[in-house]
C-alpha cells in the first residue's frame, strides 16, 4: 500500500463538509503558512518538494511561481485550472467532488505565496454539480474565517470565485482559459507574453492544475523535503492516475511514482488486470494527447528495463519508443480494440476541439479525421498512411498552442507502432469491417519499429 497524501481522507464520511474536514486536520497548512511563514518561504518549500505541474506538461511548480512578475501596485492572480477535458482524465473531478476543502486549502496557501487576493477556479461547464459543491465549500470557508478580509489576523485578504466554462477542451490551455475567464472567446493567446507577466486582465497570473494546488497542502504540512522523499528522481510525491478502458477496476488511484506499469495494470490494488481475461494490446498512459504504446513497449523500455509509472520512465526512449506521463489519464486497450478506430476517435475529438485560429491545426485536424475515417471504413489507400504521417508532421510544432501537437502525436504514434494494422485495413477492406486485427505481434517481446 503506497502512501496517500491527497486521497487519504477521501472516504471519511461527509468529508465534503467543513466541520468534518476541519476535525480531520483540515486547514492546518493555512494556519502554519499564514502565521509562521513568509510568501517567499512557501515558494522555497514548493521548490524543494520538486512538485511538478499535474496538468500535463509537468513543469516544476515552484519554478513557475518564482517567475511571476511583481510590478508595483499591480494585483496578481492565481487561477486553478479545473477544465479537465482531456479524454481519459478524470482525477480533478474526483478531488473536487470529494475533497473540495482540500482544494480551497491549497488555494489559500498558494494565493498567499503568490500575493493573489482574488483567485479563481475555472471549471469545465459539464461539472455543473461540482460547481455547486465548490461554492458551498467556499461559503463554509468564508463563514469560518478562512476566506475574506484579514485571514487569521495575518493581514492577508483572499477571495475565491468559481467560473464555469462552456464545455470547450481548448479552454484548458492556460491562455485560452484566461481569455475565457475575461469573458472572451477562448482562443489561446500568442506567447510571449507569458501569463506570469501578462495574464488575467493583463496582470501577472499563475495557472495551475487542481492536483498541483492540492499537493501544496501536504508540502506545507510536512515540509518540502519530506514530500521530495516520496517517489524517485524528478518524479517526487504522489500522483493521481485515472485509469480506464478494458481493466477490471477503473477508477482514480493515488500512486507514489515507484511502482511499475505492469504492477499498476495487473495488481489487485490498482487496475486489477485486463477485463474478461483478455490480453493487453496497447495503452495510452497519460491522457489522449500522449503517444500510444504497444504492450511490449509499455511494460519494458526499449533498453529492456522495467517501465515505471513516473515522468522519466514513461518518457524513456523519447517518442520513438516511449510516451509521456501527461495528465495521468491511463487508457488501457485489450486485444479486441482496433487501433485505426481508436485513432480515428481521437482525431475526431481534436478536430472538434480545435479553436480554429491557426491554419495547420484548423485544417489539418479535419483532414486527418477524414482520412482515418476512410481507412476505418475500408476505403483507404496505402498512400493515405504516408499522407497521414506527412500531415501530422506539418502540424506538429507549427501551431500557436500545444493542441496542434496533441492532435498530431496520437496519429504519429499509432502509425509508428501499428503500421501493419493500418496496412491490413487497407489491404482487407471487407474483412476489416467484420473483425479486428487482433493482438498480432504487439505483445511479443520488445519490437522496436525501425
Amino acid at each position: 500500500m503506497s502512501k496517500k497524501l491527497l486521497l487519504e481522507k477521501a472516504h471519511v464520511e461527509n468529508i465534503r463538509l467543513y466541520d468534518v474536514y476541519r476535525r480531520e486536520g483540515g486547514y492546518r497548512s493555512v494556519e502554519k503558512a499564514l502565521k509562521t511563514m513568509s510568501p517567499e518561504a512557501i515558494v522555497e518549500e514548493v521548490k524543494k518538494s520538486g512538485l511538478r505541474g499535474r496538468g500535463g506538461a509537468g513543469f516544476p511548480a515552484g519554478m513557475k511561481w518564482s517567475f511571476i512578475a511583481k510590478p508595483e501596485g499591480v494585483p496578481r492572480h492565481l487561477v486553478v485550472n479545473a477544465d479537465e477535458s482531456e479524454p481519459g482524465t478524470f482525477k480533478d473531478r474526483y478531488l473536487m467532488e470529494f475533497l473540495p476543502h482540500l482544494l480551497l486549502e491549497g488555494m489559500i496557501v498558494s494565493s498567499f505565496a503568490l500575493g493573489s487576493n482574488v483567485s479563481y477556479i475555472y471549471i469545465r461547464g459539464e461539472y455543473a454539480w461540482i460547481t455547486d459543491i465548490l461554492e458551498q465549500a467556499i461559503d463554509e470557508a468564508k463563514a469560518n474565517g478562512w476566506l475574506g478580509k484579514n485571514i487569521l489576523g495575518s493581514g492577508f485578504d483572499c477571495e475565491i470565485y468559481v467560473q464555469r466554462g462552456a464545455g470547450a477542451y481548448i479552454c484548458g490551455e492556460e491562455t485560452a482559459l484566461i481569455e475565457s475567464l475575461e469573458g472572451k472567446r477562448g482562443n489561446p493567446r500568442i506567447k510571449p507574453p507569458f501569463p506570469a507577466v501578462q495574464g488575467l486582465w493583463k496582470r501577472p497570473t499563475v495557472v495551475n492544475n487542481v492536483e498541483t494546488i492540492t499537493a501544496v497542502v501536504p508540502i506545507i504540512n510536512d515540509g518540502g523535503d519530506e514530500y521530495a522523499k516520496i517517489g524517485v528522481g524528478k518524479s517526487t510525491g504522489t500522483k493521481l492516475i485515472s485509469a480506464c478502458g478494458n481493466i477490471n477496476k477503473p477508477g482514480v488511484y493515488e500512486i507514489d511514482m515507484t511502482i511499475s506499469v505492469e504492477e499498476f495494470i495487473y495488481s489487485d490494488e490498482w487496475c486489477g488486470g485486463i477485463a474478461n481475461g483478455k490480453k493487453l494490446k496497447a495503452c495510452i498512459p497519460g491522457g489522449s494527447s500522449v503517444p500510444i504504446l504497444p504492450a511490449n513497449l509499455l511494460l519494458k523500455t526499449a533498453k529492456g528495463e522495467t517501465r515505471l509509472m513516473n515522468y522519466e520512465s514513461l518518457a524513456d526512449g523519447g517518442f520513438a519508443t516511449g510516451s509521456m506521463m501527461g495528465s495521468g489519464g491511463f487508457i488501457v486497450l485489450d486485444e479486441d480494440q482496433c487501433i485505426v478506430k481508436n485513432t480515428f476517435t481521437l482525431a475526431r475529438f481534436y478536430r472538434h476541439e480545435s479553436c480554429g485560429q491557426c491554419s495547420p491545426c484548423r485544417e489539418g485536424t479535419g483532414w486527418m479525421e477524414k482520412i482515418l475515417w476512410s481507412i476505418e471504413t475500408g476505403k483507404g489507400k496505402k498512400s493515405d498512411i504516408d499522407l497521414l504521417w506527412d500531415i501530422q508532421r506539418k502540424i506538429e510544432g507549427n501551431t500557436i498552442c500545444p493542441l496542434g501537437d496533441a492532435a498530431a502525436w496520437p496519429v504519429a504514434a499509432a502509425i509508428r507502432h501499428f503500421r501493419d494494422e493500418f496496412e491490413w485495413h487497407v489491404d482487407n477492406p471487407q474483412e476489416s469491417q467484420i473483425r479486428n486485427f487482433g493482438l498480432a505481434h504487439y505483445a511479443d517481446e520488445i519490437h522496436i519499429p525501425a
Partner: protein
Amino acid sequence: MSDLLKITIDNITVEVPAGTTILNAARQIGGEVAPPAMCYYSKLADSGGKCRTCLVEVSKGSEKDPRPMPKLVASCRTTVMDGMEVKNITSPKVIDARNGVVEFLLINHPLDCPVCDQAGECDLQDLGYNHGKEGTRYEFKRRTFHKVDLGDYIQLHMTRCIMCFRCVFVADQLTEKREHGILDRGDHAQIATLIEKNLHNDFIGNVIDVCPVGALTDKTFRFKNRVWFTKPVDAHRNCSNPKCCGEAQLWMRGDEVFRVTARKDEWGEVKEASNGKTGWICNTCRFETKKAIDWTIEGPSVVNRHSVISQGHYVGVIKPTETFNAVMKGRDPKLLMDIHDESEVNKPNIDLSVLDRPAHSTDFN
C-alpha cells in the same frame, strides 16, 4: 547608434530599433527575404500569429543567449533580439513547413479564382504560386457556406475565408462598434453576424481592403470587371469625414470609375496618407463617390507588387528588347501557322497568317 539591434536574416544583416518584429526587419531587407504574411497587418494591433505562413527558423537566439529556438516561430509576432540569426528561405525546414501551411490553407479553399473578384490581387494566389505545389492531395468534399449579404455594400463569401481575423480587428479598431465576429470553432468556425444582419459602420468598407482573399467583396464592383483590365489612378477628394484620409485609388476604364479602394503599399497594406493619417477611407468615398468628377486625379498609381495587377502598369515593367525574329531563332512567324497546311486542318485556300482578324472555326475544315 547603441539602441539599435543587429539581426541577420538569410545572411543579410540589418539594424532595427528594439521592439521590431523579425518580419518587419525582414521587410527592411525586402524581396524574397521577407516572409509571406497572410494574417499580420502592421496597421492593425494584435494581428498576426494565426496563419503560420511567416514561420522562420531562429538559428541563434541572441548574442547573450545564442541557443537556437526549438521550434519555428511566427516572424510577425516574434521580436528581434540583438545578435539574432534567422533563416527564412535558406532553411529547408521553413520551406517545408510553409509548403504545409499553403496546402492547409488551400484544402478547403474553393479555387474559384476564375469567378472571384479578388483574383489578380489575391494574397492566397500569390502565396500558392510562390510556395505551393501543383495538384492536391485532398480528396474530400470541401467545406462550403452560403453567400451572405452584409448590407448594401459588402458580400461575405465565407467559403473563401482563411480565418486571418483581420476584418475582426478592423471592426474592433476602426469602427464604433463591432457587429460581426467569429462563430463556432475549428474547421467549422466562420465569420458571421450571428443573426444575418447588415454591417452599418461608416468605416466598415475597409474590411474589403484588408481581406487577403475574396471572402469580403465590394458589392458595387462585383462582377463588373476584372482588376487587371482596370487602370488604377491615385486621386483625392475633400472628404468631410474627419477620420477618412480622403486619398484613394480609383480603378478606372476610360472615364468610368469601377471601384474605389485605399492605396496599398508593396506589402498589400494600406499606405500612410500624405496628411499623416493611416490610409483608411470611409464608406462614402469607397462606395458612393464613383464619378471621376468627384475626385482630383493625381496620376497613375504605382503598383509595385508581384501580382498581375501590376502588369502593364508603369513600374518595374521589363519590356523585351529582342526582335520577334531573334526570339524565333530566325524563323518566320508565319511558319507557325503553316503547320495547319501540313495537317490540313484549315481550308487549304486560306493563309491564316494573313487574316486581319482572329481565326474563326469556319476558317477550318
